[in-house]
């Protein structure tokens, strides 16, 4: 097996041999080969097993529309199933395996399915696995999944990276064949910004696969000359290995560049692929045409392929599937394959032409008016039976058949926005319709111009029209000389009377399945598609849809255009999920926001928690502490006993300025703000327009026309957005300016009886922060080590507390300074868990209570909604349903048995009532163990809760298995009068 089917010539580099394996057998190919071409050169035609019947299959095509030669590439974490051998470029050490076979490709046990094919026809699953229902998930589906196979996933993380990118151009040309090249030349010379994209590794399209000459040069030589000229133009970007996968709105296209797929491993730092978003002013679809097969009995044997593929393998890759071939055609183009293969020394056994008037030839036998009625060869074609015009049958020995049923313009991208293709009778195929994506035009074979000259000319004309549209003057390049053969075709779709004539080889759909679907009244093409799965495989039926439509048309007795087409959808070819994810995976799934004390917290072995994108310290374990509760209890107790420090930078800070700043805040908050004195802070509650609580926080008045509003960490962005909406859309007549300053300031809470004593050591002595000079709810500017600072006397913990802020770059210095100064007081730094415990002890609402369903009334802040002013949400908060006598009210709960927990999410029931939804009295929102009280406590919403203090009710939590009694108490477990705040 040493490349016995390698021919002369081709665009491969014979100086660069490449070793690879297929199903563990070593082979050799050349640089420039695809896996399929190299295997064919090595006389390997069998490359896979079909999806449903496990029939032996070889390549049908030489390009990305391939339905059959689907393999697993590479090993280990890079294993990539369902890859087309026809597009996989060979590289040194490539390992490929066939898939969907057991134990081996040559002997596949599951091929037994093929014997039972009459039971497995279209709709088999729907008809068979109906009963009993419970069997579907447990029994049927696993069996079907195992039997109907594609490849297997690597089951390891993909070690490669994928980029996303953005490109801009005047003119995107999809396809770098003769049409695209001439269009690029025209537009490039006119100075337009051009992107020329092609899925192939080479530009040139079919010219690389044909013996056609252009300007008396070999087509591929002409291509290299044009490519060289384009490469010298700075305004033209040639993107090979780049598939335009989708046409989206406003001239935006998705394109996948396979940067490193042709390499064993991507170069250091380089991505495997890049998913580009291309913004274009205009685009030209020059995607060529795809040859279509003719369906006939047993037409799926390895060796039977499209006639154009046969000569592509011979001309470009110098490979042939066999030394003796036949051609089966209904048009003149099929003869090119006979000529090209014969010129390469391959014997042409016969050309079987369905047209009765086909011309005879001196070079090979032409069987006019004949059809192939059967084939032989289990794992590869050995011969065909031809029914001649006179009705007799002749056996012909051959190892390959090139089939040509005509060419379909490749209108996929033209139809991504539901544009319906139109029937072009002169080529017996669908071409692009009128309803194209914005800015797109179609040229060349994709528009039905199937000759080389027609393609070249169409490319120039297409580009000239686009340039005129863009207001750019163009000088059309001189058109090269090339063949301009007219299309001579007599439509012929399938050989009548066949039992197993394959239409969709990837999904194993036969002509008979289409007939069955029609017989069972699935007459719409969309129903046909789903019932038979025709065109639903990863090739999207590029070689099969047309055959299905033609048979439907015969059965329905109406012309093909009336049968219609199914919808084309992106991506044009299968695209790895990794490309859509890009770099946003694993640790980089989303950005990480770090607090100013992050470095210090890491040094303390803090345990972090994600809050939005912030990483916040949850607690700071000390030596000997083995359970998080030990750390949290210590932090809480020490804060209440002496002093604790907490990084509260993450709370949103919004700078509000302007002559109407106070008026604006009066609209935003339900409670009054107009009269807040300068140098004071006020707690505020924001309502949504529907009267439900949105967020709470504080607003500090730094000047008559200057406030700093704080928000909760989680709602910082949402509140800022809301405030901008209110400013710009609801009250544009107010003089207000907003900007976020969350990140600008590092802010620490210093809380506890020794908070002031600690701060006095840190704040520069010229600032008086005594209780008299700086009372509860005061704010002002101070300095720390001569660094500008802001001080707010506010408390979330319920202790005497301050929040001190410095420019963020000094945040690290400040936490170290606070810790150092706090040593004298045994100060602790506490995390979000201790923060949560202390706010529950104090009865402060947080995100669990502001949960999008609760009103100010529910939160026990009904009286804060000022009746004298109109603020957002105040009117709708008065709705009847929100103010009933049994409204939910925020209460505290403590267990009757102090050893019992009071879990969040538990529901509350009146004692003696049934435990069901109809008798539900409320639910627990926040819960913790209070180290100060020595038992669990909770905040809850309870019907008429404010009038039920002291009542013992039943707590039920099926999720955590709790069902016991709790007592309703005030939500303020610690210091209900707030005395500690003011000392």
């Amino acid at each position, binding site marked *: 097996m040493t490349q016995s089917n390698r021919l002369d010539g081709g665009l491969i580099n014979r100086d660069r041999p490449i070793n690879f394996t297929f199903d563990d057998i070593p082979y050799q190919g050349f640089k420039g080969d695809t896996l399929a071409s190299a295997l064919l050169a090595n006389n390997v035609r069998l490359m896979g097993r079909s999806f449903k019947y496990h029939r032996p299959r070889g390549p049908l095509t030489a390009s990305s529309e391939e339905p059959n030669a689907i393999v697993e590439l590479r090993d280990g974490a890079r294993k990539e199933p369902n890859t087309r051998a026809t597009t996989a470029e060979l590289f040194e050490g490539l390992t490929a395996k066939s898939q969907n076979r057991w134990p081996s490709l040559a002997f596949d046990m599951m091929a037994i399915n093929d014997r039972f094919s009459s039971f497995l026809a279209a709709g088999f699953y729907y008809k068979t696995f109906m009963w009993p229902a419970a069997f579907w998930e447990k029994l049927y589906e696993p069996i079907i999944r195992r039997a109907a196979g594609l490849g297997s996933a690597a089951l390891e993380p993909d070690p490669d990276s994928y980029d996303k990118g953005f490109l801009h151009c005047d003119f995107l040309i999809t396809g770098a064949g003769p049409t695209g090249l001439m269009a690029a030349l025209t537009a490039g010379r006119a100075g337009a910004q051009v992107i020329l994209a092609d899925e192939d590794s080479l530009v040139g399209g079919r010219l690389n696969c044909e013996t056609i000459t252009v300007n008396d040069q070999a087509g591929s030589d002409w291509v290299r000359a044009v490519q060289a000229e384009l490469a010298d133009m700075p305004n033209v970007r040639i993107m090979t290995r780049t598939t335009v996968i989708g046409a989206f709105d406003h001239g935006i296209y998705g394109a996948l560049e396979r940067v490193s797929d042709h390499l064993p491993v991507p170069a250091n*730092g*380089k991505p495997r692929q890049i998913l580009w978003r291309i*913004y274009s002013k205009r685009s030209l679809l020059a995607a060529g045409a795809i040859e279509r097969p003719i369906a006939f009995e047993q037409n799926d044997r390895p060796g039977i392929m499209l006639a154009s593929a046969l000569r592509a393998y011979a001309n470009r890759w110098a490979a042939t599937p066999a030394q003796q071939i036949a051609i089966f055609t209904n048009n003149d183009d099929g003869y090119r394959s006979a000529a090209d293969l014969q010129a390469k020394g391959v014997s042409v056994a016969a050309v079987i032409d369905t047209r009765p008037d086909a011309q005879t030839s001196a070079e090979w036998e032409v069987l006019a008016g004949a059809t192939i009625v059967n084939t032989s060869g289990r794992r590869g074609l050995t011969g065909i039976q031809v029914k001649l015009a006179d009705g007799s049958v002749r056996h012909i020995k051959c190892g390959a058949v090139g089939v040509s049923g005509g060419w379909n313009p490749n209108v996929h991208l033209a139809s991504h926005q539901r544009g319906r293709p139109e029937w072009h009778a002169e080529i017996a195929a669908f071409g692009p319709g009128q309803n194209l994506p914005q800015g797109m035009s179609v040229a060349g074979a994709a528009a039905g111009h199937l000759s080389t000259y027609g393609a070249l000319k169409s490319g120039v004309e297409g580009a000239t029209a686009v340039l005129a549209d863009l207001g750019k003057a163009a000088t059309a390049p001189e058109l090269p000389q090339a063949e301009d053969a007219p299309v001579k075709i007599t439509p012929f779709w399938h050989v009548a009377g066949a039992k197993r004539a394959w239409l969709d080889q990837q999904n194993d759909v036969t002509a008979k399945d289409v007939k069955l679907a029609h017989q069972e009244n699935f007459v719409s093409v969309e129903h046909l598609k789903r019932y038979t799965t025709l065109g639903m495989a990863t090739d999207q039926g590029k070689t099969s849809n047309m055959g299905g439509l033609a048979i439907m048309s015969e059965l329905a007795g109406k012309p093909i255009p009336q049968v219609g087409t199914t919808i084309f959808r992106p991506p044009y070819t299968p695209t790895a999920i990794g490309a859509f994810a890009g770099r946003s995976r694993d640790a980089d799934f989303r950005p990480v926001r770090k607090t100013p004390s992050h470095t210090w917290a890491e040094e303390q072995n803090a345990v972090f928690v994600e809050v939005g994108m912030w990483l916040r310290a949850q607690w700071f374990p000390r030596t000997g502490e083995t359970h998080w509760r030990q750390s949290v209890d210590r932090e809480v107790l020490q804060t209440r006993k002496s002093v604790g420090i907490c990084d509260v930078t993450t709370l949103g800070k919004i700078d509000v300025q302007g002559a109407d700043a106070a008026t604006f805040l009066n609209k935003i908050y339900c409670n009054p703000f107009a009269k807040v004195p300068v140098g004071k802070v006020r707690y505020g509650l924001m309502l949504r327009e529907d009267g439900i609580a949105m967020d709470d926080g504080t607003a500090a008045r730094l000047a008559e026309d200057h406030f700093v509003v704080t928000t909760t960490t989680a709602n910082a962005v949402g509140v800022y957005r809301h405030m901008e909406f209110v400013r710009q859309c609801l009250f544009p007549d107010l003089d207000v300016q907003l900007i976020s300053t969350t*990140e600008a300031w590092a802010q620490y809470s210093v809380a506890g009886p020794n908070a002031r004593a600690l701060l006095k050591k840190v704040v520069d002595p010229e600032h008086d922060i005594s209780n008299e000079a700086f009372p509860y709810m005061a704010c002002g500017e101070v300095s720390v080590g001569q660094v500008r600072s802001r001080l707010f006397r506010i408390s979330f913990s319920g202790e005497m507390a301050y929040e001190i802020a410095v*420019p963020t*770059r*000094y945040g690290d210095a*400040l936490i170290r300074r606070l810790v150092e100064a706090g040593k004298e007081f045994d100060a602790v730094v506490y995390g979000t868990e201790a923060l949560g415990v202390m706010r529950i002890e104090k009865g402060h609402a947080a995100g669990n209570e502001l949960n999008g369903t609760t009103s100010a009334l529910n939160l026990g802040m009904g009286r804060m909604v000022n009746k004298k002013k109109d603020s957002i949400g105040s009117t709708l908060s008065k709705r009847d349903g929100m103010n009933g006598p049994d409204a939910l009210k925020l209460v505290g709960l403590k267990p009757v048995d102090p050893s019992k927990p009071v879990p969040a999410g538990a529901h509350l029931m009146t004692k003696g009532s049934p435990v069901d939804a109809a008798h539900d009295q409320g639910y627990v929102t926040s819960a913790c163990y209070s180290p100060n009280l020595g038992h669990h406590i909770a905040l809850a919403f309870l019907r008429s809760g404010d009038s039920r203090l002291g009542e013992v009710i039943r707590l039920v939590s099926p999720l955590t298995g709790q069902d016991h009694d709790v007592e309703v108490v005030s939500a303020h477990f610690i210091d209900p009068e707030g005395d500690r705040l003011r000392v």
Partner: protein
Amino acid sequence: MSDISARMEPLTPLGTKTPKIDVFGPVTLSEVVDCALASFSARLGQQDAARNVLMRFCGSALPGPGQAVLGTVTVFWTGPEQWMVMAPHDTHEDLAEQLKALAAEAASTTEQNDAWCRFDLKGPNLADVFERLCPINIRASSGGEATRTSIDHLGCFVIVGARDAITVLGPRSAAGSLHHALVTAIRSAI
């Protein structure tokens, strides 16, 4: 061990004492900390007065939408009648106050010094780097553009001094993520 009488030592957005500078072949990526920032928004009905103040301060005409005027004092447009002003931190730490003193009731100014981290990229082919980062068409820029965009989910300003000198301002807390994104794109592109 920190001494509470010592000078407060600033850290860079990437969390070190000195700014990080990375060189990748022809491209240099520098963390820049000598950069004071202030937002400048005209008050309602005071647009002309505010513009005059800012024009005097930066010594040039003000940039329009999507534009920046670069110099010792750089100004870029961030919204209708609002700009961001950038100047050396060493000399303009109180930039917002300086501007406020000049503008009085004509404009609102807010200190933004440490709200942002700043990375400067220098080198040829920066368009190749940025096309992997954001939808801005660097190839079409001639210098003097400032655009708000998203880089790896982070809201950033990209200020093009020239096609070989581009500044990125991003949220300071996510400086590490932004730096990672920039390094990744540079390594991928060059």
